[in-house]
């Protein structure tokens, strides 16, 4: 397991060129945005600061580790990784975000901290949605939230399967959609769309390639 996670690390430079080579049309547009997280170019709205009693409360408590933004009417918090298990628990216990809709990740291979981990939360009593995002480096782990929301068990397994993100304290962290023994994590940007675990295909399906 550990070696699987480390193996993609040396390859990014080579791997990064792959997706762009596959989609030259997408790379060509005149206004090439630099960073998805950066404030938008003239076209399109910009994330604005989000102010609410909830934000004030936790900013007083945690200081600068929280950045609250709102985009197209949807609120989210960019938080420091160190706040992660505590803040999520407080959101559930004190703010009634009792339903974790989804956990997912986004891969930015050029960034130092390559992954955005995203929790999409919903509160039944408040009828309100919010997202919590944090950045982690490749190979770094993040505390599991299975004991906060039971639903995150499979969601974290999927994030591990697809991105190789380690969730500390998960009761049974293993692949869920791909077979055991598959090499690589397909939703990383350095995993090309035609790439697959040829060895696995050959051993288990007895053919040269599944494509």
């Amino acid at each position: 397991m550990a070696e699987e996670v480390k193996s993609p690390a040396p390859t990014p430079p080579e791997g990064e060129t792959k997706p762009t080579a596959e989609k030259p049309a997408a790379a060509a547009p005149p206004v090439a945005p630099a960073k998805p997280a950066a404030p938008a170019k003239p076209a399109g709205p910009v994330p604005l600061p989000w102010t609410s009693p909830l934000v004030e409360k936790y900013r007083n408590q945690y200081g600068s580790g929280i950045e609250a933004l709102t985009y197209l009417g949807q609120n989210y918090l960019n938080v420091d990784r160190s706040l992660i298990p505590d803040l999520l628990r407080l959101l559930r216990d004190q703010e009634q975000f009792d339903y974790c809709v989804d956990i997912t990740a986004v891969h930015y291979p050029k960034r130092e901290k390559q992954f955005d981990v995203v929790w999409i939360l919903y509160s039944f009593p408040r009828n309100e949605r919010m997202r919590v995002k944090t950045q982690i480096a490749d190979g770094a782990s993040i505390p599991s939230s299975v004991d906060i929301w039971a639903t995150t068990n499979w969601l974290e397994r999927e994030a591990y399967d697809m991105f190789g993100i380690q969730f500390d304290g998960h009761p049974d962290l293993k692949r869920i959609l791909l077979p055991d023994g598959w090499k690589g994590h397909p939703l990383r940007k350095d995993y090309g769309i035609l790439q697959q675990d040829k060895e696995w295909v050959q051993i288990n399906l007895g053919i040269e390639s599944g494509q």
Partner: protein
Amino acid sequence: MSDQTVRDKSDVSSQALSRVESSHHDHSHLHLEAPEKPYLDSNELIINMGPQHPATHGVLRVILKLDGEKVLGTECVIGYLHRGVEKIGENRTYTMFNPYVDRMDYVAAVSNGLGYCEAVEKLMNVEAPARAKYIRVILTELNRIASHQLWLGTHALDIGAMTPLFYTFRDREEILKIFEKYCGARLTTHAFRIGGCQYETYAGFEKEVKNFLTFVAPKIDEYEELLTTNRIWLERTKNVGVISGDDCVALGVTGPVLRASGVKWDLRKAQPYAAYSEFDFEIPTGENGDTYDRYLVRMAEMRQSLRIIEQAVNGIPEGPIMGKVPKVIKPPVGEIYHSIEAPKGELGYFIVSDGSTQPYRLRVRPPSFVNLQALDVMVRGLLVADVIAVIGTLDIVLGEVDR
């Protein structure tokens, strides 16, 4: 059923099969305790249900730990239909990806398309015109009825009632005919486009939909007549697969399963999308959270869908069906989460745009996947035959679980 599922290792003739089985058992969290009294207490065994089992609704494999007929624990093995939909999404333009979403929950393709189109519209900060929204609501609710009909037929068949299958498929055909006339496809419809609808309604659309409403209302009564007070149906569904509202919330379970446990929550009311805020309808709920209540909730939902369709088809406004959307879909840099109430529960799309013509990241939050996680909680302590009933009552579609 037991012949197929109870597969003792000594019976496995094929070497390959036993190799696969043993390798998977090694990774499973279920383990047999060494029996202290090897002769009398050797009832505990681990067996496979699926993936090639007719009652698992596709290719779901459930590893069951049993004490005789009693279920001690389960583990779901999924991914047999994994096609990498999210990866495909990152490598296709927004427009090209639209038909792919139909292939997730293929019995409710219209709902998938609605969720995807609305998510991209939200990301682009545009809105579909009123007429398009009404057409969307009519087709989506028709699809909800079709999905529930298919669920009812197969679920009843799993439990042993064969007749409802013929009735529901006969009536579902009428919905598929409307779809076919509208967009040319029956199942993977690709009915909507980003920004509105591609097709104007055909001549006689309103009339046919109204005819369908008067046709199907007595048919739903007919299904209920067959089952609601049927002694065998009651025995097989009452107090089977009970799950509390709190457990549902903790496990993220949504849709009819959540409502049957007494939580009155429907995204069409809680956070209205399309034109749902303009219609009058109720959210049916259950009390006991058992298989029977989930059946009643879905039956009531079909009737509520008829109400919605009736209002929509009578009030369908004139006007354009396509909003002001550029030919090349290029949402600005940003991210959005949008979800709808699909027949199975909350279907969400989380899209990150980097300003290009292709999504930077496209995440699908599938209701079937999350709901399936509740299977273990629901079947512990029940009998093997009840596992079939509970898989049926969860109403999963493996194409959506695996994506």
